[in-house]
Each structure stands twice: as structure tokens, then as C-alpha cells.
């Protein structure tokens, strides 16, 4: 096949194509991979001329394609996982990926009634897993194409109808330190009326690239809460895509905490496919130095009577750059839609940057949609008040940053999670 590589202008892009050709797996999703790499070949890495990626120019930001990561020796993998604090011992089940590959000896996936977890790699060797690629088919995006083309492993998680999973299900990703690239792909399906909480954690050491994607669907009446903690190494690149589809009467509470990575993009696509559902997409970012953090949310109100909330709080220090893009699409006939988004940023230095892009596209006439953004610095009067009580300046600032974030963090409700996130905030602030 003669490839048209005209869209591929950078060394990283050409290297990705070479890597794909060299890997040439013959698994059950070969066709899906071929289609994805063809898509990538025609578009290349997203850059500022691609509207959806306007503020995160990956063509400039990603200047190399690291080799695909391999599983380190067992002892090394265990040591890497041991250093990662997820949400402590609160998880009921835990699936661990080291360098993007399932580590069974470090995971605990069985024994919870109503919960089935399998490795994607093991399944792919035999057949195409149910649900894989279904939600991805609707999105044209190069980060997702790369994930599809290269996906090595991931979790296939099924929660049975009516199951109430008491303790959080943790999906832990750890990069063990080699300069390498990981591609994980998860398919999560929550059955009718089931209740479950997921915690998705990313952590690692050194220079590496993470590309992760999740296809998530919730059947009628499911209640799902989901916390994503992105605490990658400051030298890492983190690209993540969450594709979600909610049936009717579903409640979905999603929270993203971004503090790691040199460059990160967390994109969430959510589609309401049944009436009477509600989704809260909250996020907090804490970035400093030269970090670039992009949170992009796209909500499709495809049916009437659904409610969506997008709330992003950003704390930006150093010369870091934050991006928050929120898009609400209200389809024709999606009456009584209630969609709101708010972005609030706290600037801790004068060299920071924040881009906020709200988009509302409304094709129904009886809807409520709104957006708003604010940005500011720490209020000197508040700082003076705290210091006048003997609280040293650094601690007073920490208290005020936590106070700023509390609105999104405390909504989580689970005390242990709130404490963990507050602890991380204090650590981030060096306090």
C-alpha cells in the first residue's frame, strides 16, 4: 500500500506510522486498528488549526514517539506500584496496569459479586470484546485514533444489572520509569439499576507518554460516580479520552483531578441517550512551572429532560497554562434540557495563562443553558485576616487555595476521597 504521508510533517508523526507498521499485530481488531491509523495518517497530530485542539497544539508539544512500553521485571513492577498512593485501602477491587500492561499479581479483580473484570489483551487474542469501538466510532480525533491503533491492554469491566458495588473499583496506571509509550483502552459497562464508584489513577516516574481511552456506558437507572486522579510525572505526557453514553434515569458524577504531566489533555465526551438523566462533570487542576493542562468536555443532549453541570476550578502557578473547553450540544427535540458550565481560575503568579472556550449549540427552543467564567488572584484582605491571627503566609495561602477548591472537592461526599485530594493539594503547594 502506498501511503499518503502528506499530512505527516513532523518526526513524531512519521515515527508513529513506522511503529505501527513494525508492530503489525494480527489480533481480532486488526480492521479497527487499520481504520484508525488511516485516520491518523490523513490528519496527523492535532494542532492549532484543528478547532477542538486550538489551545493544545500537540504537533508542537509532542516532538517524539517513544517506543511502546514493555512490562518490567516483577520486582520492579511491584516496587513502582507500591510507591503509588491511590485512594489508600478503600478500593474493593483493583486492576493494575504497569507500563500499560495488566499486572495480575498486583491486582485483585475477583470476589466482588456483580462485578466482572477481564484483561483486554487476553480477550483480544481470541475475539473482539463486546462494546469495544462502539462509542469510539462516533468521534474523529487523532488522540483516540492513536489509542485504537496501538491499544495494548486495558480493563473490560461489567457491572451486573441491579448490583450495588459497595467499595470503589480502582483502575490504577503506573509508569515504571522507562522512556516509553503506553496505550490502554478500557470498556466499562454498568447494568440497569446498578450502583458503582470507580477511581481511575495515573502515576509514574520520569519521561513517558500515556494515551488512554475509555468507552463507558450506563444502562437505565444506574448510579455511577467516577473519580479520575491524574498525577503523572511532571515530565510525562498524558492524553485521555472518555467516551460515555447514558441511558435514561442515570446519575453520573464525574470528577477529574489534574496535577501531573508536562502536557495533559483530558477529553470527556458524554451523550444522553435516555430521558431523565443527570451528569455532573467537575474538575480541579493544579498546575505550575511550564505545565500545560487541557480539560475538554463535550456534552450531547440527544434526548429531552436531562441535566448537565460542568464545573472547572483551576489553580495556576509559575508559567503554566490551563485550558478549559466546554461544549453543550442540544439536539432538536431535546426540550427541557438544563445545561450549565462554570469555569473559575485562581492565578498564583503573573506569568500564567488560562484559555476558556464555552460553546453552546442549541437546536431546541425550550431549554436552559448558561455558562460563566471568572479568574482572579488570592484576595489580599483574606490573606491579611488569616495572617493577623498568626497563621504564617504560606499556610494562609494553602488554606485559601483549599477553600477555593473546596466547592468542587467537597461535593464528592466521600470523606476519605476528600481528605486524600486535600492532602494532595497541600503537597502540591509544598506545605
Amino acid at each position: 500500500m502506498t501511503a499518503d504521508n502528506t499530512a505527516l510533517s513532523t518526526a513524531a508523526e512519521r515515527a508513529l506510522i513506522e511503529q505501527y507498521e513494525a508492530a503489525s499485530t494480527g489480533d481480532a481488531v486488526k480492521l479497527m486498528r487499520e481504520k484508525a491509523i488511516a485516520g491518523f495518517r490523513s490528519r496527523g497530530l492535532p494542532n492549532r488549526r484543528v478547532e477542538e485542539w486550538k489551545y493544545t497544539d500537540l504537533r508542537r508539544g509532542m516532538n517524539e514517539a517513544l517506543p511502546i512500553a514493555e512490562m518490567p521485571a516483577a520486582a520492579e513492577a511491584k516496587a513502582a506500584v507500591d510507591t503509588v498512593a491511590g485512594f489508600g485501602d478503600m478500593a474493593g477491587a483493583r486492576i493494575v496496569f504497569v507500563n500499560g500492561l495488566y499486572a495480575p499479581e498486583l491486582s485483585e479483580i475477583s470476589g466482588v459479586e456483580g462485578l466482572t473484570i477481564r484483561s483486554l489483551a487476553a480477550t483480544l487474542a481470541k475475539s473482539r470484546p463486546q462494546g469495544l469501538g462502539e462509542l469510539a466510532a462516533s468521534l474523529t480525533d487523532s488522540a483516540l485514533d492513536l489509542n485504537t491503533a496501538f491499544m495494548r491492554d486495558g480493563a473490560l469491566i461489567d457491572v451486573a444489572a441491579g448490583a450495588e458495588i459497595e467499595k470503589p473499583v480502582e483502575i490504577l496506571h503506573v509508569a515504571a520509569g522507562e522512556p516509553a509509550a503506553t496505550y490502554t483502552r478500557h470498556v466499562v459497562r454498568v447494568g440497569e439499576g446498578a450502583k458503582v464508584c470507580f477511581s481511575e489513577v495515573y502515576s509514574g516516574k520520569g519521561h513517558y507518554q500515556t494515551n488512554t481511552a475509555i468507552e463507558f456506558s450506563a444502562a437505565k437507572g444506574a448510579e455511577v460516580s467516577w473519580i479520575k486522579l491524574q498525577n503523572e510525572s511532571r515530565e510525562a505526557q498524558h492524553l485521555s479520552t472518555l467516551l460515555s453514553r447514558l441511558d435514561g434515569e442515570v446519575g453520573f458524577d464525574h470528577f477529574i483531578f489534574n496535577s501531573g504531566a508536562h502536557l495533559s489533555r483530558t477529553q470527556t465526551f458524554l451523550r444522553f441517550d435516555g430521558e431523565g438523566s443527570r451528569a455532573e462533570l467537575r474538575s480541579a487542576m493544579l498546575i505550575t512551572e511550564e505545565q500545560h493542562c487541557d480539560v475538554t468536555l463535550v456534552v450531547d443532549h440527544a434526548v429531552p429532560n436531562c441535566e448537565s453541570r460542568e464545573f472547572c476550578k483551576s489553580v495556576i502557578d509559575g508559567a503554566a497554562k490551563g485550558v478549559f473547553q466546554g461544549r453543550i450540544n442540544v439536539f432538536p427535540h431535546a426540550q427541557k434540557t438544563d445545561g450549565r458550565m462554570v469555569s473559575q481560575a485562581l492565578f498564583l503568579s503573573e506569568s500564567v495563562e488560562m484559555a476558556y472556550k464555552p460553546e453552546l449549540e442549541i437546536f431546541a427552543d425550550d431549554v436552559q443553558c448558561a455558562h460563566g467564567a471568572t479568574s482572579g488572584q488570592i484576595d489580599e484582605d483574606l490573606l491579611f485576616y488569616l495572617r493577623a491571627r498568626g497563621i504564617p503566609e504560606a499556610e494562609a495561602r494553602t488554606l485559601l487555595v483549599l477553600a477555593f477548591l473546596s466547592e468542587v472537592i467537597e461535593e464528592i461526599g466521600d470523606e476519605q476521597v476528600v481528605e486524600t485530594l486535600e492532602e494532595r493539594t497541600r503537597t502540591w503547594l509544598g506545605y
Partner: protein
Amino acid sequence: MALLEIKNLHTRIAEDGTEILRGVDLTVNAGEVHAIMGPNGSGKSTLSYVLAGKENYEVTEGEVLFNGENILEMGPDERAMAGMFLAFQYPIEIPGVATITFLKAALNSQRKARGLDELPTPDFMKLVREKAKQMNITSDMLKRPLNVGFSGGEKKRSEILQMALLEPTLCVLDETDSGLDIDALKVVSNGVNALRSPERAMIVITHYQRLLDHIVPDIVHVLSAGKIVKTGGPDLALELEKNGYADYIGEAA
């Protein structure tokens, strides 16, 4: 040695250079309660802010010695740790910081500065509950974000609770009576009076004599146009209540 010595203090607003204090001299000894009265705009609140270390003011001349040490170079937190306390005229609302969290942070910072261990949580809770009860502050209020949604009276009571908890050696009360009804005024005054001691001094800033019926001062000063123009006993406050400040406004100008 005096607890506080203010010598020829001149200050201006940093932003626009407006002169506010034009040579304040004041000596306060441990155990004394001083009242500072004066018309609007005379510099009373400025004096309290300059003592507490607010950065919006520039000291152009003079010095402030607290326990013999010049505090003008110290940050507000260092002054608080040295024993200074300002009860704000307008206590600041801090959404997202629970009152109890704030009290704990303040007390433990000060304990740390004094070389003491942090108070264990049960002991701290016991202490706060006891002091809060005296100030009619409910445990529900303690859980709420600091001063957010508090009434005027609640804010002032919360200030005195902080004072009682932190046990400063110099308390500066800036118009603590403003916005208080008679009952709240009594609670606040009782709280303040309970803190009077031979080791502690107070500077009570007010417009009205009314507060001084409850918190009886040893010495009364009149501040006008940035200077202390008259000093006397408690009778001076009564005289001011009767005749107003007219006599003193001319004197300073």
C-alpha cells in the same frame, strides 16, 4: 517597660499618598485599658491596621515598639505571634474555610511559634466549646465557613472568641460595638472584660461612649486629624458624648 510605645507615628495610604496619621504618640502599659475616640476620618481604624501590619499603609516617620521591639518590619502573622490581636471592625468572610478549621490553624500556629506542641483535637474541641459557650456561639456556627452568613452580632462575637482562644497580650478592638444590639453588646463586653488582666492591655476604638459603660477604660484619648489631641480619664468620654468633637476638630487643624 511599656507594653506598647508609639512614637511620632506618621503614615499614609500606599496607593495614593494620602496622609492619615500625623504624629501619633501613645504609651500603653500592661493591665491598662485605653479608649481612643474621635470623629469619622480621624485615623482610628488606620491606627489599628498599622498596628496589625496591613500592607496598604506606609509608615513615613516614627516607630512602634511592642515589648520594646520595633514591629514595623514584622509581618502581620509575626506580630500576632508576638501577642498582638486586632478585632476587626468588619470581620472578613472566608467561604470554604470552616470556622473551626480556621480556629485550629490559628491556635496551633501560635502554639508552634511559642514552642508548644499542637493541641490534640479532643483537647482543642473541649477548649473551643467552652470558650464558644461564653460567647453564645453554637457548634453549628463553628462548622459554618468563617463569618459567611453570620449576622453583625455573630461576627463580632466570633472575633472575641478568637481573642479568648489566642490569649494575646495586646487587644485592639476596632469599633467592636458597631452593628450590635444591646444584648449582643453585653455579651461582647462581658467577653472582653473576662480577658482583662494585669498582663494584658487593650485599646478600644469607638465612636460612642455607650461601649465604655460596659468596658470601662483607664485612659481616654481623642484622635483628630491623625493626632492625639486630648488625653484624660473616663470622664472625658462623658464630656465628648455631651459636647461632640467640635472642640477638638479645630485644635488639630
